[in-house]
């Protein structure tokens, strides 16, 4: 079965739009999209969090309290639960002063995957090796 790599680059901050949420939900859905394809291609998505997109991964988001919507934090945790690879740009975390301990994980949900904090050069390699890039 042929594999098609897709990189979903989330660069918008959380809330005030659906953009970053759609990045997560599309990435999750891509993992089973082969059942809708007739050519048997298997889609391998990777989520790349860059720029203000890294803010989506903060813990203790008070989305319901502040905006009356469900938390993007839960989408991030569900993405890890669904075994998505989520690469986080280390330089952008430093730029925003976010320590790694402030980032979400889904260990409490039984997820095997963890966020992968990497230099931007690693994210660039993933983007260059992907057949398709989607920006959210």
């Amino acid at each position, binding site marked *: 079965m042929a594999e098609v790599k897709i990189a979903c680059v989330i660069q918008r901050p959380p809330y005030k739009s659906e953009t970053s949420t759609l990045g997560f*939900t599309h990435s*999750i*859905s891509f*993992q*089973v999209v082969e*059942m809708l394809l007739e050519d048997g291609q298997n889609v391998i998505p990777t989520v790349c969090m860059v720029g203000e997109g890294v803010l989506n991964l903060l813990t203790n988001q008070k989305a319901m309290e502040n905006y009356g919507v469900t938390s993007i934090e839960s989408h991030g945790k*569900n993405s890890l*639960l*669904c*075994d998505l690879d989520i690469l986080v740009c280390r330089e952008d975390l430093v730029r925003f002063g976010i320590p790694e301990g402030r980032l979400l994980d889904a260990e409490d949900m039984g997820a095997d995957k963890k966020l992968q904090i990497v230099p931007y050069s690693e994210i660039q390699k993933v983007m260059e090796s992907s057949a398709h890039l989607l920006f959210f």
Partner: protein
Amino acid sequence: MADLKSQTPAQVLDVLGRVCPYPLVLTKKALEKLPSGAVLKILCDAPASAEDSLPRFAQDKGYPFESVKLADSWEIFIQKP
């Protein structure tokens, strides 16, 4: 066809309260981690997943599939060949 319901499942996947695409994605991931021949039991209350995407996924893959409709949910059995 083997009676999957009567077999002891290797894993019970509870996706009650979850809607599409989570039941299907989590089912696919669970099956990937099970050994050949194992039966996965899925507890699901999302009609679109229980009646459409999960049976279609099993059919496409050629996986034996059984579904039991309960009052407000389904018990679904899929065997990894």
